């Protein structure tokens, strides 16, 4: 590889790469994000290579492995350029068909096209699929265009030109001013303005200074940072190098959780190839600016993602938050000024440099600019990564992009902000998603987790689930967080078992307020959110559990029984075969019945009962959780729901 010694060298290289590429040439891209790889996209890629060779099309067709496209629920994804034909859920066996039909004969393979849920209409182009149509994919779009292992692909789409611009045309003050002007706020949780952080770090008269990428991403179910690092690592590197130049740092770290092997691998390759081109290391692009990056593999504790805990971990200590009130931008890694930002925040930087603060500010709301990536999961038709302008309403995300709730169920709530975020009910679906509106509504932006819940979700159980997670993921160092979570979990456990007491709701609220005020770090300060927000919006569910030992959603095991409706039962015996505790048998009338004493409420019978029968019903029945009390099956049974 040649070393690039000036912006001119970079431009020449880019032109030579682009000149060898014909934009009208057919290019098959196979998504190789973690989701699609799990669905077998690696085999599909290999099959394409063989098939293209077999049909002697190597001269006319390019084949490319790319990063995550985001529509992970429908993978593996194949997009064929220049028409942008999108095939979903293809298998190895489909490859020959795609090559002969679509590539050679220019015909579509109908069975692999997207079909609209309601109209059944087929959609050919990726951009026309509603999941994509309503998004604004600034950061994610490039994932679909480049092979993350090939730096040339990134350079071909204008990559690293932002570095050339800041190193040779701007001074540091211009750069910081531009980022401040853009009002880019941190995507990792707090929403702190990046430019202000840069300025603080830069102005501390202490050297050396450090810059860090936070790719700990500990929220269960969230994977936007992983997809960016896996799919377009150079963009994050470019942002980091620009930030390093702005604050005057020569050493940077990328803290990646160990559970992300592909992100680690692609980042490593990106660092090596950038160094070979002279875009990293000594004398970057001949500018005299030196900068090195080290990857730090994180052990993956949720709390290690907190800024000061992360710095402790990089220093080789226990990854627990520091109690000091001094900002890490002043005294961070090894007590030196350190600028730490989230993956997505860094990835925005090259775009702002290239297109300007005014362009960036034209997207979003008054105080939240640009786009935000969410990982949309749960009870939703289209799961995947969604990038939208700040200010998009939850309703647009859930219904237009997400395609609504599956199985004709009703929407109940959406949880945003990760484990310590809050839930928002139906009547809040029209709030614009931005930092301030979500906080005001009792939830938060967090790093962008978004979990949709349908009517069969118990909100007390949901709160209990998050509190249990946090109770084990807190570092346990400060009393409000550790003891507060311990007692919250005890109380929620008793409520979901039907032995909650009057006054429990008020006690949870009092405890939650204390934790928000007194905890040492943001984990403890935000940990009560799941409880406080569910109480705020679904207080009646708490009351039903406490006052009537009833779970309105029919979820809490101690409060329900499964029952077979003899009139609907087809006598097929599937439930009997699938019951793990042999609790189901025939009675003298040949009807299947559940022995409530051995039933463990696993729900297996309900999931195997044929749709045309739907004979299994869930009924309220409070069963005292302690001692050997027999179930009170004589409670007036009211059906909550059937399959």
């Amino acid at each position, binding site marked *: 590889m040649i070393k690039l010694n000036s912006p001119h060298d970079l431009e020449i290289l880019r032109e030579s790469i682009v000149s060898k590429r014909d934009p009208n040439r057919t290019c098959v891209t196979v998504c190789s994000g973690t989701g699609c790889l799990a669905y077998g996209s690696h085999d599909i890629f290999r099959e394409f290579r063989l098939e293209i060779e077999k049909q002697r099309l190597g001269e006319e067709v390019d084949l490319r492995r790319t990063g995550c496209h985001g529509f992970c629920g429908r993978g593996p994804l194949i997009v064929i350029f220049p028409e942008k034909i999108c095939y979903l859920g293809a298998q190895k066996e489909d490859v020959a068909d795609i090559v002969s039909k679509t590539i050679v004969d220019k015909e579509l393979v109908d069975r692999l096209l997207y079909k609209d849920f309601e109209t059944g209409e087929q959609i050919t182009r990726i951009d026309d699929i509603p999941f994509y149509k309503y998004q604004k994919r600034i950061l994610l779009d490039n994932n679909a265009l480049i092979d993350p292992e090939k730096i040339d692909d990134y350079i071909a789409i204008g990559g690293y030109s932002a570095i050339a611009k800041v190193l040779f045309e701007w001074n540091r003050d211009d750069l910081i001013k531009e980022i401040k002007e853009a009002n880019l706020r941190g995507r990792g949780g707090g929403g702190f303005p990046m430019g202000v952080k840069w300025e603080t770090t830069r102005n501390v008269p202490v050297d050396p200074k450090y810059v860090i990428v936070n790719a700990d991403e500990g929220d269960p179910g969230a994977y936007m940072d992983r997809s960016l690092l896996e799919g377009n690592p150079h963009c994050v590197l470019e942002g980091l190098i620009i930030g390093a130049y702005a604050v005057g740092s020569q050493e940077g770290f990328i803290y990646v959780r160990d559970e992300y092997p592909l992100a680690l691998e692609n980042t490593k390759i990106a660092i090596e190839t950038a160094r070979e081109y002279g875009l990293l290391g000594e004398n970057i692009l001949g500018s005299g600016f030196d900068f090195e990056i080290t990857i730090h593999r994180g052990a993956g504790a949720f709390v290690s993602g907190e800024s000061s805990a992360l710095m402790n971990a990089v220093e080789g200590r226990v990854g627990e938050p520091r109690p000091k009130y001094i900002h890490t931008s002043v005294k961070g890694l090894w007590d030196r000024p350190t600028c730490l930002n989230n993956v997505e925040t860094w990835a925005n930087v090259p775009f702002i440099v290239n297109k300007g603060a005014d362009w960036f500010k034209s997207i979003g709301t008054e105080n939240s600019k640009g786009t935000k990536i969410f990982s949309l999961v749960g009870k939703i038709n289209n799961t995947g990564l969604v990038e939208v302008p700040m200010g998009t309403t939850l309703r647009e995300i859930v219904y237009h992009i997400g395609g609504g709730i599956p199985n004709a169920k009703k929407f109940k709530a959406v949880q945003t902000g990760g484990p310590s975020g809050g839930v928002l009910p139906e009547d809040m679906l029209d709030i614009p998603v931005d930092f301030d509106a979500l906080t005001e509504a009792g939830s938060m932006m967090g790093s962008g987790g978004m979990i949709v819940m349908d009517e069969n979700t118990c909100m007390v159980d949901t709160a209990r689930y998050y509190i249990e997670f946090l109770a084990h993921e807190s570092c346990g*160092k400060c009393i409000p967080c550790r003891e507060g*979570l*311990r007692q919250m979990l005890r109380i929620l456990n008793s409520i979901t078992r039907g032995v909650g007491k009057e006054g429990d709701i008020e006690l949870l609220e009092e405890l939650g307020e*204390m934790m928000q*005020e*007194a905890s040492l770090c943001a984990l403890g300060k935000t940990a009560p959110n799941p409880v406080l927000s569910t109480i705020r919006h679904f207080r009646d569910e708490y009351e039903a559990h406490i006052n009537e030992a009833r779970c309105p959603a029919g979820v809490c095991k101690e409060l329900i029984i499964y029952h077979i409706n003899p009139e609907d039962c087809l006598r097929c015996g599937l439930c009997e075969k699938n019951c793990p505790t042999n609790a189901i048998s025939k009675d003298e009338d040949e009807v299947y019945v559940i022995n409530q004493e051995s039933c463990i409420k696993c729900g297996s019978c309900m999931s195997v009962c044929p749709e045309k029968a739907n004979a299994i019903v869930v009924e309220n029945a409070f069963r005292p959780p302690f001692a050997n009390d027999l179930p009170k099956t004589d409670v007036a049974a009211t059906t909550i729901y059937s399959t």
Partner: protein
Amino acid sequence: MKTIELVIDGKKVQAEEGATILEVARENGIYIPTLCHDDQLQPAGTCRMCMVEISNNGRKKLVASCVYEVEENLVVKTDSEKIRKIRRMIVELLWPTVPALAKEFGVDKSRFVPEHTECCLCGLCVRYCAEVKKLNAVYFKGRGIDREIAFVPELADECVYCRECFNLCVGGLIVNQCGSVYS
């Protein structure tokens, strides 16, 4: 060293730059309750009993006074309804492991079911052993609500002779456990 002026509970006081609110308050005879603090040890900021209200340029917030360093023109309130509520709640959460504080705050029962009866996890023993004794014979094991105090078995023999952290122990666990480890 630069001298800093601030106001604590209405009293104008002077302090050296880098001192914490707690240190300055104590020098001036102003009481702030603490649990995890000990003059021999680095402040840990973990019990949150020492929370005080500060305001600077009109903005109010609650901070742990044992780790917050004084600032020019800071106005500190060491007691208020809100602060008392937090402290009482902390004592209630630690019930029954902190008898002295319980008495001080008039807490004679708790609305919570305690899971620890001998240890409030203040960490004084751990920090004393690490910072003063430089032995690291006791340590925190586990994370979150699973956190507990544990001995390094190879070093526990020493504890029997040392016993220096015993009089720091609030809950009594160290005293009781050390006996059982030895036997």
